């Protein structure tokens, strides 16, 4: 598609930066100190620019029908043949994500103003949030891989800062550090992938890269080993940012940040960066079927693995955290079978319903005086009707109940996993199992929180209150999107009944992220699709109901089946992965560092140096004066020594 010069991408990018500068620099300067900003000022300074960016994004979106929008304000770096432009582009993929980021971002900014109204560091909070939006927008708007990496690292920084927002608590500061460092492991993979790409193509520009991939695809003239290695390296980066096996460990801990942050960063936007990157480079990944297989299986295993952990958690945010890891697994599953469009579709619906669920959980936590343990809740429906209603919609959506948004996107993933040429039956089976698990743990979460006996302590109950309007508004907007958002991607099969409603999203993304064609058989015989759809619908309804009913007055699986106790212990402890990493990687690394510093450096290298020094000293006892601590004497020796040396050499040179 033609790219037209437009300043819109730059304005959209810079508006949140303005919010950051206001909250991070100008307001503190005016008030002569940090931590003095009022909630209203802080929220306005960050929210208004972002809302404006959302409006501009809508304007830009309207133009995408015919062309994409490009701006290259300056050249970032140029060395020899390396040219990196600060190039921003809104095309149909980045345009969609820009809408999600600015739209959901604005809602969450609003929610935060009420949720954190009594927080002293509110200025700092909004500064970080604005910086995050800036970085996330740079990630999707950047038309050069290094710019994507700018955003990629920038969102990581903001995540670090926001997870550790309540930094005085060691545990929260540690969670932030863990997120940053785990992500750095992935970042190295990303960098290696980017360098490989540069080695092969000699450019970082997405337009150049896309054209090159297409050329490779048609000519077959490329080094398939290098391409596969590139894809795998980039995917390592994705496993970091998007919390997949083996680098997912930071995301659950990341929930120690404020809940709106979990909704925005750790559910709706940042964690999907890996999916975005793969969708952006779909032409490359298409050339590496082996890498795709790895991605599909890693996604599938992560989905199942995280889903099983979610079922045993007591902390409502932990359930949602593992659910996010699991849903991201679904997205990678889709990427891995070549259904990039579907991955983006699920990215979108997930952004709606998971942001909703997180904000809902925030509303619950807010109401219950910062209680997050679901086993101490129950029966909240009566007290929090709006929160319950909106969260129920989110739950139905994530469980895949027909015709809520998650139903469409998840169903498409499952069907792609079996029907597409790149599909794998085991991936499909794992996907179905995980879908069932998702419905069960979501049902359990709803049941433990809102239904059954009230297990609240007396004190909390007295203060129980429905959240104010400013928090409910974002919940309702997101609930609306979570309910109907799926109709952007109605499958062909159902579209036939809806006046031949097309798959809007597929048509929209087509020019940037082409759809993989279904085999002819599948189109001619839609029976498979119908079976998958009907089956998954029934499964979702049954499992969600089971989840709700079974856990009405039981909190753990063990209470239902006593034999489950040992397994539940393992699940509740997350398969002891953190402990295993600690013992297998972190401890040895720390010991190794200690050996480097205390043994090799101090005794080995420095010991040798001092040994040489001592030896020399023994030869000339007179030089001992140097070590006696008299600076003047030492200085004298220095001058004498230099003079002697220079004189000697001057004499030598003359000869």
């Amino acid at each position, binding site marked *: 598609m033609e790219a037209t010069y437009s300043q819109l991408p730059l304005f959209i990018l810079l508006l949140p930066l303005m919010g950051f500068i206001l909250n991070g620099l100008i307001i503190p300067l005016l008030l002569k100190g940090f931590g003095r900003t009022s909630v209203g000022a802080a929220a306005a300074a960050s929210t208004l620019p972002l809302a404006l960016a959302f409006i501009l994004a809508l304007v830009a979106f309207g133009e995408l029908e015919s062309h994409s929008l490009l701006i290259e304000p300056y050249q970032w770096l140029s060395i*020899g043949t390396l040219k990196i432009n600060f190039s921003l582009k809104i095309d149909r993929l980045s345009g969609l994500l820009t809408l999600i980021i600015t739209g959901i971002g604005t809602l969450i900014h609003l929610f935060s103003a009420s949720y954190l109204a009594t927080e002293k560091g509110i200025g700092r909070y909004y500064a970080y949030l604005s910086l995050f939006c800036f970085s996330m927008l740079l990630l999707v708007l950047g038309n050069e891989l290094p710019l994507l990496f700018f955003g990629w690292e920038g969102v990581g920084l903001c995540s670090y800062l926001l997870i550790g927002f309540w930094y005085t608590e060691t545990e929260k500061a540690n969670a932030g550090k863990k997120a940053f*460092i785990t992500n750095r492991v992935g970042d190295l993979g990303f960098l290696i992938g980017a360098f490989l790409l540069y080695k092969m193509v000699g450019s970082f520009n997405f337009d150049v890269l896309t054209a090159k991939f297409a050329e490779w695809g048609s000519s077959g003239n490329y080094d398939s080993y290098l391409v596969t290695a590139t894809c795998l390296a980039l995917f390592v980066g994705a496993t970091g940012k998007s919390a997949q096996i083996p680098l997912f460990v930071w995301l659950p801990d990341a929930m120690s940040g404020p809940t709106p942050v979990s909704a925005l960063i750790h559910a709706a936007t940042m964690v999907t960066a890996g999916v975005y990157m793969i969708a952006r480079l779909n032409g490359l990944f298409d050339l590496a079927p082996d890498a795709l297989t790895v991605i599909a299986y890693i996604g599938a295993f992560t989905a199942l693995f995280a889903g099983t952990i979610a079922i045993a958690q007591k902390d409502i945010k932990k359930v949602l955290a593992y659910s996010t890891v699991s849903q991201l697994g679904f997205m990678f599953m889709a990427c891995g079978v070549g259904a990039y469009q579907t991955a983006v579709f699920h990215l979108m619906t997930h952004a709606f319903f998971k942001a909703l669920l997180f904000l809902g959980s925030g509303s619950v936590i807010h109401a219950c005086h910062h209680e997050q343990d679901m086993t101490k809740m129950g029966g909240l429906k009566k007290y929090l009707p709006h929160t319950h209603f909106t969260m129920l919609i989110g739950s139905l959506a994530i469980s895949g109940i027909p015709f809520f948004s998650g139903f469409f996107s998840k169903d498409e993933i499952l069907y792609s996993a079996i029907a597409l040429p790149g599909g794998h039956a085991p991936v499909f089976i794992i996907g179905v199992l995980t879908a069932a698990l998702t419905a069960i743990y979501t049902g359990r979460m709803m049941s433990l929180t809102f239904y059954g006996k009230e297990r609240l302590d007396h004190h909390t109950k007295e203060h129980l209150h429905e959240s104010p309007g400013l928090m409910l508004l974002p919940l309702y907007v997101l609930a609306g999107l979570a309910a109907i958002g799926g109709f952007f991607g109605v499958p062909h099969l159902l579209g036939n009944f809806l006046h031949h409603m097309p798959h809007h999203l597929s048509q929209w993304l087509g020019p940037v992220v082409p759809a993989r064609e279904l085999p002819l058989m599948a189109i001619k015989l839609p029976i498979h699709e119908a079976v998958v759809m009907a089956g998954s619908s029934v499964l979702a309804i049954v499992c969600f109901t089971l989840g709700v009913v079974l856990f009405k007055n039981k909190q753990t699986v063990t209470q239902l089946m006593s034999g489950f106790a040992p397994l539940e212990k393992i699940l509740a402890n997350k398969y002891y992965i953190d402990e295993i990493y600690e013992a297998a990687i972190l401890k040895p690394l720390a010991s190794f560092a200690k050996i480097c510093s205390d043994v090799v450096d101090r005794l080995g290298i420095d010991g040798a140096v001092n040994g040489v020094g001592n030896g020399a000293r023994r030869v000339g006892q007179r030089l001992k004066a140097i070590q006696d601590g008299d600076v003047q004497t030492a200085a004298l020796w220095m001058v004498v020594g230099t003079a002697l040396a220079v004189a000697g050499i001057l004499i030598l040179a003359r000869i």
Partner: protein
Amino acid sequence: MLSLIVFLPTIAALLLFFIPSSVARKYAFGVSIASFLLALNLWFSFDTTSAAMQFSEVIPWIPTLGIHYALGVDGIALPLVALAAFIAPIAWLGTWPQEAVQKEKFFVACALLLQTGMYGTFLATDLFLFYFFWEIVLIPMFFLIGIWGGQNRIYATVKFFIYTMIGSLLMLVAIFWLAGMAKEQLGTTTTLMSDLAKLSLPFNAANPWMSPQALLFMAFTLAFVIKVPMIPFHTWLPDAHVQAPTLGSVFLAAVLLKMGTYGIIRISLPFFPEASLWAAPVLQALGCVGILYGAFCAMAQDDFKKLVAYSSVSHMGYIVVGLFSFNTIAISGSLYQMVNHGIASAGLFIVVGMLYERLHTRDLNKFGQLAKSTPMMAVAFMIMTLSSVALPGTNGFVGEFTILLGTFQQSIVLAGLCGLGVIFGAVYSLKAYQKVMLGPSNVEVHGHWHAHAHSDAHDDHGHGHGEETFAVVTHDMTAKEILAMSLLTVFVFVVGFFPETFFGASKVSLEALATALGAK
């Protein structure tokens, strides 16, 4: 113009005799500003389209030996001169003590002389003059550590001195050998770099160890890598840093270490290209090991200053790897990294100094939660940390990214191994940040400074009871410190987002060097 830049600090040091001790520091700061303005003038007068030496001054100095007083500046020297000029006022501002130090005038004179040495080293276009300034630097540094250093200062200063001296003596021998060869080949004894560049230095690939070019290369390069410092010649650095006063540490890390890498790019590579190529695998390997080893050692430190010192060993390793990659991008990146590491390490050492001045400790286990009482310092420290871990958007990224990208084109494995430094760098940097700024406070309350402890004010429910955490209120940055850190911060982001504004001036010179080396 160049002579004025070089000798203004020396003249100013001589004039100190007429300046009262009480204003010596203000005077020195004024001189550093004047010096900075001169450098700024140089910057804007510099012709960025030429790779040749500009503003050259050549005067015979010791005619019988062909030694000249010769200065000149090209795109490789320019950013380092700018760095030295930029760091000096910041170093004064960032380390302004509450009380005057002992022998204030002598302290100031040493710092001024140090600046002359730094400028001279970067601007000399005669090898002997280069050596002269190289050695000049040692003397004030020797006193700065030896007189105003910590408890173990004599050990550190002697170690620093002997280490550097061994290297530079070899360099001196090599310079005269070169001068002798000039007599043979050109008919005249000379140490002018432009003349020596015409020499043909035999390099026998079959028996490199005995080739004159290889021997000369080794003599020079040993002196340079000791200064860098590259492992295994690095152990003088942590000791020197820990003992040095903050001002000394700032100059040492920000500028002095770059003299070593500058020597490599100015002398080792262009004069001995074949020997450089021959030795590159070993030097790159040592550089790479240095990145990782420095990072590991940094991870294990409890002494904040030692941690930053080892991080320098790690970051300087990138430069060695990049310089010997024979890749245009990586060589350019190495020059960028010299400047960028100068900025970040200056900032970090100033932070260490500010904390030491306030809390009288460098033990990372005795800080904590300072972000609460010193939020501005927390911001400044965070920004320097980000630059140090090479976060995109900061200047640190520009150098590390280009070095890794360029090295990767040369060797995937080597670049991959060096890239591990990206991970470990984050580990020790964030550890230091957390131990100082975040978490519970471990500050010991002493009587002699204003301290006020109160229970954790954080009102998050369900926390804070059981064990009482204490936040100690210590004063945040002073106006001078704010100014120093703000200047560094501006540089960090401007160069991070607009690297061409600063490094564009070096492009032509770097490309000329790369072409001469036959770099890819």
